[in-house]
């Protein structure tokens, strides 16, 4: 695990792709794409069902590791229209004693009413202290931006012509893009420029690359 300090606040980067905000006991994660497997299956494409189950395992482990009072989803929590995955999510939400916020993403097309009915608050974005939480990666003057959407990854090279593509946290001066938390999601390869810091997530470790 890797801890970084931004504007005098501490953030723990977790190998799962989530971030824990120490001062606010807040966990945030991006691009879970719940129900994606079910959506595919509903349309006749047989993705193994087990590929969907991972979210609950991962989040349970995170909540055990960190004393959390609030979870912020940085958009694309659900992949598409309402399907049966919703009921799993609903029953999970009911068991939590937490504040849950969803920052709307481009995939989030499930009506707000549904979320409100299970006490999940929906926001377009969120400003807290000097931090700005949003789905799409933007820059906002005087704020540090946490966002998702991109599913960032990087290409690595080593001797012996070794190459690898890995998901990562992608941090520039005033912005941090989270990797996709969902299992059945792809990678978008970014090329780091000067001043960018890359933290690779392997599932086991977070590795800072220079």
């Amino acid at each position, binding site marked *: 695990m890797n801890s970084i300090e931004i504007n005098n606040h501490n953030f723990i980067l977790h190998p799962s792709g989530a971030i824990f905000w120490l001062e606010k006991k807040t966990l945030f994660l991006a691009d879970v794409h719940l129900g*994606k497997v*079910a*959506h*595919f*299956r*509903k*349309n*006749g*494409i*047989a*993705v*193994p*069902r*087990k*590929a969907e189950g991972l979210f609950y395992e991962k989040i349970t482990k995170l909540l055990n590791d960190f004393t959390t009072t609030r979870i912020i989803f940085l958009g694309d929590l659900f*992949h*598409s229209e309402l*399907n*049966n*995955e919703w*009921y*799993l999510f609903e029953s999970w939400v009911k068991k939590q004693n937490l504040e849950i916020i969803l920052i709307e993403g481009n*995939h989030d097309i499930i009506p707000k009413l549904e979320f409100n009915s299970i006490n999940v608050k929906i926001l377009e974005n969120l400003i807290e202290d000097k931090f700005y939480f949003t789905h799409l990666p933007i820059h906002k003057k005087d704020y540090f931006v946490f966002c998702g959407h991109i599913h960032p990854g*990087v*290409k*690595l*090279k*080593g*001797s*012996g*012509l*070794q*190459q*690898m593509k*890995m998901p990562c946290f992608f941090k520039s001066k005033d912005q941090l893009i989270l990797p996709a938390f969902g*299992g*059945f*999601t*792809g990678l978008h390869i970014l*090329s*780091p*420029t*000067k001043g960018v810091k*890359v933290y*690779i997530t*392997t599932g*086991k*470790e977070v*590795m800072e*690359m*220079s």
Partner: protein
Amino acid sequence: MIKVLKWFKKRGWNAQKFQKECWKAYSEGKNGILHAPTGSGKTYAIWGGIIDESLKMKKHKTGIQAIWITPLRALAVEIQKAIQIMTNDLNPDLKIALRTGDTSQKERGNQKRKPSFGLVTTPESLHLLLSTKDHQKTLKSLKIIVIDEWHELLGTKRGVQIELAIAYLNSFLPNLKVWGISATIGNKDLASKILLGSSKSFVTVNAEIQKKIEVESILPKNMERFPWRGHLGIHLLSHVLEIVKKNKTTLIFTNTRAQCEIWYHHLLDGNPELAGDIAMHHGSIDKKIRLWVEDALRKENLKVVVCTSSLDLGVDFSPVENCIQIGSPKGVGRFIQRAGRSGHQPKAKSKIYFLPTHAMELIESLALQRGIEKHKIEDRLPYLNSYDVLFQFLMTLAVGSGFDQKDLFPVIQKTFCFQTIKKEQWQWILNFLVKGSQSLEYYDEYKKVTILENGIYKVINKGIIMRHRLSIGTIVGDATLKVRYQKGGYLGSVEEWFISKLIPGDIFTFSGRNLELIRIRNMEVIVRKSKSKKTRIPSWMGGRMSFSAHLSNLLKNALYEETNKNSPEFRALSPIFDQQKKESIIPKSNEFLIERFETREGFHTIFYPFEGYAIHEVMASLLAYRISLLKPISFSMSFNDYGFELLSDQTFSKEDFLDNNLLTKNYLKDDIERSINISEMSRRRFRDIAVISGLVFQGFPGKPIKSKHLQSGSQLFYNVFKDYEPDNLLYQQAIEETFEHGMESGRMIKVFENIENQSIVWRNCSQPTPFSFPIITDRIRTKLSSESVEDRIRKMSLQLEKGKT
């Protein structure tokens, strides 16, 4: 047959023996296969019989009576023209329709309302016909199906499509006649059996037109400067220009479209006078331009055409005097076919020049010449258990009339491809279609095929029906975009991944022109002409072909046989052989050569079994796996037809390798399976399987996809199957195809038995040898590692944006 014979005579032709044999057999109601090369009169050998039969019938039934399948759309156009001409003269009431991917919706509607006597089509379009609700009614009068250029289809998954279609048609048309037309291939008998079945009686007709083929290698004047690797061959441009100058027309065959574009440009730069007399022909160029080129060739309006396999088949070009093959054609059969494009006049000799793109290809040239002399043509190996094609076919039936699984199972078992399919696998497939898994799970909303009350398997959902119809076909390509001038006018299509690397303002070469990218809109690339010289050339995917097993034997012999030492090719190679001998050896038949050297890239270990690409791919992975069991190590592997390379950042010693008996044939199958699993070599195979079986929906150019949320890459599918459903038949198929397709069964064992009888020669070299060069510079690689991901990352660094470090 009198009318047909008269028709021949009127045209000044003499019916040939094989044509008469075909007509006779056809009139006796037999099935058959005709072995005849392109341009021999094979079309009329079959159509003559069909038209003769039609003349004997008093009243014509409605509905299609004859279907003619060709592998290429361009070929279908030609065949339709040719047989319509004969039909017009002999039985003018009959119409021949054409139905391919280019046929408009309106025309298809017409065909449905008023079916014609004959239909010329492709395997994909035939399957589309089977996906209609009332296809059994449409086809109720069908008497004959002809499979043209069967040798091209066999050995591909489109061949499996044909097998399935014929078995299915036979199930409700028991008297259907089947005829195949094939060029000569090594496994002729098997090819006939696959198409016509072993039980039914059928006749084999051989055209026996043996043309004399002369091969000449184009040799540089100075071998010292001959490149050790490379795939363009431009260094021999002046020789090519000379040949072009000397002859009336020359066809230049290249192996890839990129190579085709590059050669076109260099020829024009090298001799600007060729402007107007030179053209280019490849599969990505717009149909209209291609047809123009073909026509101009026929009319002797062109002096030189640079092409790819797009001109391998069909189209009779009598004026062609010469062919030049750039780089290895990778097979004797293909080489003969291409050589046969020249000298079409009866008894004319075919002349083909072989232009080696690197030194080692000169040995290949020799091997090809021996193959032609002995008329040793390679086999086309059929696919077995292609579940992806079966899935597609079952869906094709399910979106149309639906199917009864009990009736269909024996039909499927009748095909060569699925002769060993068992009840359990069949049930697995049905479950996968209906439930999307093997057990029904709570909450699951999987929807694809529904079992109706009467037991019929059918698709109800309109979206699924539409998506399936759009994706019928087994030729898998990257998504392509149409290239269009801003003012209008199509130039052809280019693969998406190439265009995605360009930004507006960039210049690229396409269809022989330098173009500036203006923008990309609605699956169209909008361009304008550019005068800039700095351009990029798209390198199309799929340019990689494997050596046939056959050629590898010829190759070994070419290298070992003493008699070859005096050939012009060997004499030309002698400076390179000298260089090879300085560092290493030229292996004899009883030696297995391994070379080791170190470069900036790491430790290279090169093995030379000379067994061809397909075997080397598997061997590389197997040996990497066995070494990786000794200690944590990561390999990057590359392979060509001569040998393969294991590259690593740490070394393993000769003793490690030899003392552990890593070249043993024991546990071969287990080790290979494990190595394929770890190295994920089957990833590339899975890509095609995912598309064919309908897991990945590609969408089509010009047809915007509404189902955006259903898009996903095959890589992602590969990962989830590997992690969660490794026993899935489609995932298993990818693994099996990796180590079985492209090689005769049991061949791998033989290779290892052979090595046991060889002495192993391990040479430590101070620098790369000429033999190793084409292998180590290849950038298409697979990987295998026994180190943890984290350990590997620790040794790596980020790839930064180009130009900005």
